[in-house]
C-alpha cells in the first residue's frame, strides 16, 4: 500500500514557481465495487490548496466515481478519505438536466447556495460569462449555459475545493478558452484547490499542475509532460494523442505565446505575452 503511494509521490513534481498549499482532500487506495465489478482499484488522489489537478482516463475509467468518493458522496468499499477540517466544497457535476416542471429562476437557484450568495450572484454570473441569464428559468438554459450557472453556484459557496466534472462539455470554443483562464484565475486569486475531470488535453496542458490518469487503477500521475510520455498513457489514448500532447508541451515549454494568443482571441484584445496564469 505505502509502496504505491511512494511510487506515486515520485511523480508529484510541481510546476516551478507555484507553491501548492496544504492538502485539502486526500483519498488513499480507494476501492469501489458496483455489483462485484471493481470500478476503482486502489486509486489514490489528493488535492492541495492552490493547485489544479486533472483527472483523465477513458470512458468508464471511474473518473466520476473517484471524484464522488473524494467528495464523500459515496462510501468506498475500501480505502480512506480525509478532508481538511471545515472544508467547503464546490461541486459541478456532469450529468444534469433541470426538471422542467420545477419553476426556478437562475437568481433563485443561485440564492440557494447560501445567505451571502444573493449579493454576489450578479458578479459571479458575469465572472463565468453568462451575466444575461439571471432572470431566466433554469429549464430554459442551454447545456453550456446551465453548466456555467452550476459553476457560478459552486463559486458562490466560496469553496476551498472545487470539483469540476467535464467543465467544458457542451461549451463553445470561446467559452472553453474562457473556462481555462477562469480555472487558472480561481487557483491563483482565490487559492482554491481544483480537481478537474477532463477529456480536454488543452486544458490538461495549459492550466494543470498535476495529472492523474486512471483506468480503474492509477495508470500514471505527475506533471502533464511526464504523464504524456508514460507508456500506460500512450497505450490508453493512442500514440496520436500522446504525440499531440508532447508537441504541445514542447511548444509550451519554449514560448508562452500560444496561451497568450488564445486569451487574446477570447478577449478580442492584443496579447501582451503574459501567460494566462499571470494575469491579475
Amino acid at each position, binding site marked *: 500500500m505505502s509502496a504505491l503511494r511512494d511510487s506515486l509521490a515520485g511523480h508529484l513534481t510541481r510546476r516551478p514557481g507555484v507553491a501548492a498549499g496544504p492538502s485539502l482532500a486526500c483519498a488513499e487506495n480507494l476501492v469501489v465495487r458496483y455489483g462485484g465489478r471493481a470500478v476503482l482499484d486502489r486509486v489514490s488522489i489528493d488535492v492541495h490548496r492552490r493547485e489544479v489537478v486533472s483527472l483523465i482516463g477513458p470512458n468508464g475509467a471511474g473518473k466520476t466515481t473517484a471524484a464522488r468518493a473524494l467528495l464523500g458522496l459515496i462510501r468506498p468499499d475500501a480505502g480512506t478519505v480525509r478532508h481538511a477540517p471545515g472544508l467547503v466544497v464546490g461541486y459541478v457535476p456532469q450529468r444534469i438536466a433541470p426538471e422542467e416542471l420545477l419553476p426556478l429562476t437562475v437568481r433563485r*437557484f443561485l440564492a440557494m447556495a447560501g445567505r451571502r450568495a444573493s449579493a454576489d450572484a450578479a458578479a459571479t454570473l458575469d465572472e463565468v460569462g453568462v451575466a444575461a441569464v439571471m432572470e431566466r428559468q433554469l429549464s430554459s438554459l442551454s447545456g453550456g449555459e446551465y453548466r456555467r450557472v452550476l459553476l457560478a453556484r459552486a463559486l458562490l459557496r466560496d469553496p476551498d475545493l472545487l470539483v469540476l466534472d467535464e467543465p467544458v462539455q457542451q461549451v463553445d470554443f470561446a467559452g472553453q478558452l474562457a473556462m481555462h483562464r477562469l480555472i487558472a484565475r480561481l487557483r491563483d486569486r482565490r487559492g482554491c484547490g481544483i480537481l478537474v475531470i477532463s477529456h480536454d488535453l488543452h486544458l490538461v496542458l495549459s492550466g494543470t499542475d498535476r495529472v492523474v490518469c486512471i483506468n480503474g487503477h492509477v495508470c500514471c500521475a505527475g506533471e502533464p509532460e511526464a504523464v504524456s510520455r508514460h507508456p500506460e498513457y500512450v497505450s490508453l489514448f493512442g500514440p496520436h494523442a500522446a504525440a499531440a500532447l508532447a508537441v504541445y508541451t514542447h511548444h509550451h515549454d519554449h514560448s508562452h505565446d500560444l496561451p497568450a494568443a488564445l486569451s487574446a482571441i477570447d478577449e478580442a484584445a492584443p496579447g501582451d505575452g503574459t501567460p494566462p496564469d499571470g494575469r491579475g
Partner: protein
Amino acid sequence: MFDDFFARALAGGIGVALATGPLGCFMVWRRMAYFGDSIAHSALLGVLLGVALSIEPNAGIVIMCVALALLLLLLQQQRRLATDTLLGILAHGTLALGLVGISFLESVRVDLMSYLFGDILAVTGRDLIWIYGGGGVVLVATALIWRPLLAITVHEELARAEGVRVGLVRIAFTLLIALAVAIAMKIIGLILIVSLLIIPAATARRLARSPEQMALFASLIGVAAVVGGLHGSLAWDTPSGPSIVVAALALFVLSMGGGALVQVVLGRTVESARLPH
C-alpha cells in the same frame, strides 16, 4: 340536514386540497406519482389492520401507509428490482391482499366502494378533525423541510455535496406522503387519490414563476376542483370523488390552452420588442 352534509363535504374536500397542494408539487417534481399510488393502494390493508386491532380505520390507514412507505424506501436501496417493477408489485399486491382480506370479514360490514372511490358525502365531524389535524401537520412539516427538500429536488447530488442530510429529508417527505394519502382517502378514495395530488400541481406549473407560487396555486386549484366537482356531483347526481377529479382535469386542460395562449402573446411581445434593434 341537506346543508349540513354538503357543508361538511366541502369543508373536508377543501382541507384535503389545501394540505396536498405543496406536497403534490414535490411529487410531480420528484417524479413520484407511482410511489404515491403504491402507498394509496395499501390503504385497504390499513382498514383491515384497524378492524384487527379494533382501532379507528383512519388510524389503521395511517399506520399501514407509513409502514409501506418505509418498506419502499428500504427496498429501493437494495436495488435488486427496478423501482417501477417494485412499485407495481407492492401497489397491486397490497390492494389484492386487502380485497381478499376484507372478503373474510363477516361480522364487520365494510363499504368497499367508499374506500375505493371515496365517500365525501358521508364525511363526519370526526373525519373533519382528522383532515384538519392531519392536514395541518402535513402543511407545517412541509414548510419546515421546504428548503432542504427543494435543494435535493433541484439536484440531489449537489445538495449532498453541500451538506444536506438527504436520507433524513427523504424519509420525512415519504412519511408526509403517507399521511396525506391517509387523510385524503375518505374524500377521493384510494384509486383516485394521486390524481388530487398530481393534477392541480401540473396545472399550476404553467402559471407559476417560483416553487412557492406553484405550491400555492396547486392548493388553490385543488380547492377550485373540490368546489366545482362537489357542485357538479350535487347537480347531476354523479359520484363525488370522480366528479372532483373530472373538475381538476377540466382545469388542467384549460390551463394547457391558456398556457399556449399566454406563450403566443408573450412571443409576439418579445418579437415586437426586438424589432427596433
